[in-house]
């Protein structure tokens, strides 16, 4: 049994890392639950990433029926999008690694 404060502390810990541009929680159908990003970006991220995550997990499951997706990292020129999927929810973090690394 975990309390709501546990969640809050996890999120604040994540946000405190270097180079974090945004933390986002959404469900698999793409509706954002919590977000530290502006609303329009939140919508885009949640809609697009949730689709990509479900596609990725279906790929891994097709390749091996017993396998499952545990983590997804998308590296782009500007930043890295990290996606941790769960049964119902997705935790998405957008980080600028350049800012953190140097």
């Amino acid at each position, binding site marked *: 049994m975990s309390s709501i404060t546990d969640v809050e502390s996890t999120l604040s810990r994540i946000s405190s890392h270097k180079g974090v541009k945004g933390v986002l*929680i959404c469900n698999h159908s793409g509706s954002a639950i919590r977000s530290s990003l502006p609303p329009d970006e939140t919508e885009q991220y949640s809609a697009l990433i949730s689709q990509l995550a479900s596609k990725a997990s279906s790929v891994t499951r097709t390749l091996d029926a017993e396998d499952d997706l545990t983590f997804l990292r998308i590296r782009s020129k500007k930043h890295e999008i990290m996606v941790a999927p769960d049964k119902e*929810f997705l935790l998405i973090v957008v980080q600028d690694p350049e800012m953190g690394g140097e």
Partner: protein
Amino acid sequence: MEVAYLYTKVRAEFGKDCKFIDADPTVLESIVPSEEFEEHYTLKNPSISEFDTTPHMSESECNTERLVVKSTSMRHMEGGWPKDVDPSEMSDMARFRKKAEKDEDYKTAMKTLGPMIGRCMKQNNTINIYEEYFDGVQADHSSEPPSAKGLAVFRDPHKVSRTATSINWHPEGPATNGKIAVSYSILNFQDPQFMGDTQMPVSSYIWDIMNPNTPDIELLPPSPLCCLRFNAKSTDTLVGGSYNGLVSFYDLRKPNAPEKQCMPHETSVIEKSHHDPVYDVFWISSKTGNQCASVSTDGQMMWWDTRRLGEPTDVLNLATDSKGGGMTLGGSSMEYNQEAGPTKYLVGTEQGIVLAINLRNRKSNNGVQVYDSGPGKHHGPIYSIQRNPTHNKFFMTVGDWTARIWVEDLKTPIMTTKYHSSYLTSGCWSPTRAGVFYVTRMDGVVDIWDYFYRQNEVAYSHKVGDNPLSTISVQGTMQSGGRLVAVGDVKGTVSLLEVCDSLASQQPNEKMAINGMFERETKQEKNLELRERDLKRAKAAEEEASKKEAADKKDGKDEKMEELLRKVDADFLAMIKEAEDDESKASEGADLGEEK
């Protein structure tokens, strides 16, 4: 039942006349009558039958139906909310979120997912696992043999065959997936296809290079376009020049236009436009970014403001002598490059002569500078003219069978390619490599010259098709690109080629070497000119000297003659005087006698 007869003949006997001889009959097949056949006997009335000893043959062709594919996509914007949540209602969403946050699963999920993400982030912050180890290393492709491969073919959707008259790449390049604006028109004078009531098809197209089956946008000008260009500053606008001399302006963002079609936003009026097809049009640098310049074979250059195309802002006559007495030349190609000078233009003419126009020197001959009209000019119209992208002082012209390289301040070309085996129709520089240029030929071949490698031979020839090519354009800017080449032909087909790295990426030292080569050739040409001038001067001086001598001689003769005449005159006078004296003496004597 199969009756076969093998007939053999020696090779030596082939082609000889037939000789028929009588021969005994031979039995090839014999069918014995049987009762079984009799049972099947039916009388057929009437009956037609044919006999022929030649074998029956027929030719038939078939082709599978063309599969037209289309790519579609959709974008999910608002997230998958449950049925009872209205995504536009903030309170609904807030309620849903609150509910979700209270969910036990949510809490446990966050607890497990948090550390996972944390680990990755720490990893990212500690080491750069995507570090570029070989950054700044320039690959040397020079050993690679040059090559090119066809990527896609864009066919003119119209049934009537038209020439692809110009190709212009979208200035943003690969960011927009690559788009090309292609203008199509029929340049034949009074083409018999359109002598009746049939109208020439007017539309030109913008293609997305990822989708060769259907054009992205159809442009509908009042008359077929001969040239079309994207505005580099505002890439949704284009300007085109028509076959009948009009200049039209397009804005692709026009909201209430039918899908995938675009009518001109503004068009010039026919009385105040060119009287011949507009062969080229350029966006020129201006504060508003609405100015453009056009050139036509009617011998005029016109400047326009695309917001008010009612009349040109300026007109210039392409005359070799502004005071009259010279020729007016028809412009068949134009070059404008802001880096070389915002008031400078180069015009290639139908007569093969190059003109440089500088609006800043309008006082001297209207700003028109005429290049060599003797042996240095082309033997036919100049189809393409372009400045070298890296060295703006030098430019190339393509006409007749050659491409020539010129320098701004010399009247004669500094370099000329050998005569190609076929007539050249168009050409352009590679945007990335200073020494590479492309020319298209009448026999469907693209020739690629690499001056960094050799100057006497084509570096690579690529056969695109059998149709004569009409235009070429290479995608990219000085910094990037240079790999994709679009080539248009007279049947309206645009082929997209991809050239290999060695032809596209800048080679070490290339810029310097090419500049050195051009400078050297310039110096040589300058020295030749100087020498020629010296020779001419010496010859003129010599001629003058000999003339003077001749004149001197002539004068001397006259004096002598005069002297002679004077002498003769004096002699004559003396003689007369003597005779008179004698006579008077005689008469005096007679008088004296009478008196006596």
